């Protein structure tokens, strides 16, 4: 259900029409202003996206079986909460945009295309990609910790106070930093040399 409010730019509607209509003649994708979307839930009509700051939302139409599962499984509890089985399908949240974002044809097109392409992928491939991304995040976490330890060693080895900043932004070293470290290497023990960081930190002079 849509109530009055900020209307979608015509050029976006035209562009989304490229992705076709559902069997009920409405578009498969639509861009709406979040405050317009109303929902029937537990006997009341209420704004659906009350939990979001007002923004543009790209919605996808889903057929009944995808949106709500088989009709045979639509039990009394689901009916009490959501009303009748949605035989017309459901428009559902797909992507929201920052509040100050204005719809651009290209951005909306790319998102809709990516969602379309995401629809027919075997579960195993999906799971593998999710695990791969998790692994990458874990690796990042370990690298970040290692970097922080390196920076601490750097400070400790050189007896300097380090800026309370960590991470990549703190690892831009100037030629002067490098030369200074080279000088110090001659003065510090082999053990300390081994501890010198690969990337190092920005020292307060």
């Amino acid at each position, binding site marked *: 259900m849509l109530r009055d409010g900020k209307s979608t730019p015509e050029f976006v509607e035209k562009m989304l029409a490229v992705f076709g209509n559902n069997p009920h003649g409405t578009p498969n994708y639509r861009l709406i202003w979040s405050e317009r979307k109303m*929902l029937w839930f537990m006997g009341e009509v209420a704004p659906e996206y009350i939990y979001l700051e007002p923004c543009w939302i790209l919605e996808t139409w889903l057929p009944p079986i995808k949106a709500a599962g088989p009709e045979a499984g639509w039990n009394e509890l689901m009916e009490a909460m959501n009303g009748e089985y949605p035989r017309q399908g459901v428009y559902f949240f797909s992507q929201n945009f920052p509040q100050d974002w204005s719809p651009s044809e290209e951005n909306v097109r790319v998102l809709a295309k990516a969602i379309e392409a995401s629809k027919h992928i075997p579960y195993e491939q999906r799971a593998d990609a999710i695990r*791969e991304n998790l692994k990458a995040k874990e690796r990042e976490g370990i690298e970040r910790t290692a970097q922080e330890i390196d920076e601490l060693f750097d400070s400790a080895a050189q007896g300097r106070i380090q800026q309370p900043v960590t991470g990549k932004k703190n690892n831009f070293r100037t030629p002067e930093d490098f030369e200074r470290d080279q000088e110090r290497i001659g003065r510090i023990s082999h053990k300390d040399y*081994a501890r010198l960081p690969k990337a190092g930190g920005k020292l307060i002079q």
Partner: protein
Amino acid sequence: MAASNTSNVIGLQKEKVLSNLPKLFLTGEDKVITMIMRNGGLGSVPVSKRSLRIPLQIAPGGKGRLANFDGGTLGRGGSINTVPGFVSTKGFLWALESTTEAYWGTNSNDKSVASLTSLEQAQQMENFKQFLDALFFSPSGTLGVITAISGNVLTVANANNGYIGQDVLFYPALGGTVRSATPSTFAAVDANNKQWTLAAAPPAGTAVGDLVMVDGSPGTAGSSLSSIYDYHVSTNTGTVLTLNRATYPGQLNISAIAGGGALTPVMVRAILQLSIRKIGTKNKDLLNSLKFIVGVEQAAAWEAAGVSISQIFRPQSGQGLKTFDGLPATTPDTMAGRELITQLHGDPTRVDSMLIKNWGMATTKELGPYSPPGSSQTVFPVISTTDGSVVASNLKYWALEADVFCINPAQESAITGLTIPTNL
């Protein structure tokens, strides 16, 4: 003179060791436990060994009625009613041990591609947090329930709750007698097949239905880190924060939908709306802290629902977009517009919503290296039991004395009993 061949120059040839050290295992994320510790609404709350009191208001107070102001009796009133919930801290440990020679043999770039000390320092905190995160998804420290046993191989619902080298105990049930006080060790973790392989045969009597519990567990309810599933109970049974749910029906239990099939967007919309009704539409801060927690299985099911962009097309952090130029590289994973945290631990048949602002950690000893009071010593030599001398093996511990708590579970929700997509 014959030409030199490889055997003639073998003394000259260098051995090359690649400097990268790929990890062939995945211990899981620590995102949820880290959020609670650091960024949760309540963060880490320093507490003594006396229980943390959590005041909870259970009734609004006041009595409304019709009145006759033309000389009628107005009647007596009432006021607010509060009860305290309690949280006690528990001890958790991460123990590392290596011989002195293992450190000496790797303590410079000339000797080793990476020093054991640096590797331990870089990884131990992450690994400890991942272990704690697994406990957060393992009620009473139950990492899994055995569904099949074949030799040393145990099948469970989610093998990712354990890690290679982890010690575990077996109990027939909570409150039962441990099968063996000597822990068993995971020699392999096969997440895809949902199997743990033990280094040796399981203890005598271990059977299907046994609980695989974290080492050190006494096998009793509530003896481990409080789990999200201790708080995310939809019935009015059991206790939470030491309060009896039956005494406060509807106030200490979550809203839940029994999935009973594949995850659908309508189910997600329903639990979101149920939470909103408990939170109120004006509490934007709390609403904004709502996140969905799922395992890989339900994350894949959510993708298959057809409303989101597959991770296949998502860039990994720091990389460009894999396929779709123009897709924002920072596009977050969302479920109905709320952050979707996919992680490896926990029940693969559930979707849970968490309001991070409701969560905190009561902390007696913050997460960090273990030192005896008044000392900065963090490395401890092993002492020989035969002659009392020092053994050339060194122990390091990371410690935490804490417990996780949620001050208003009724505002949270879950979908339970979802089917796991085929082949996952």
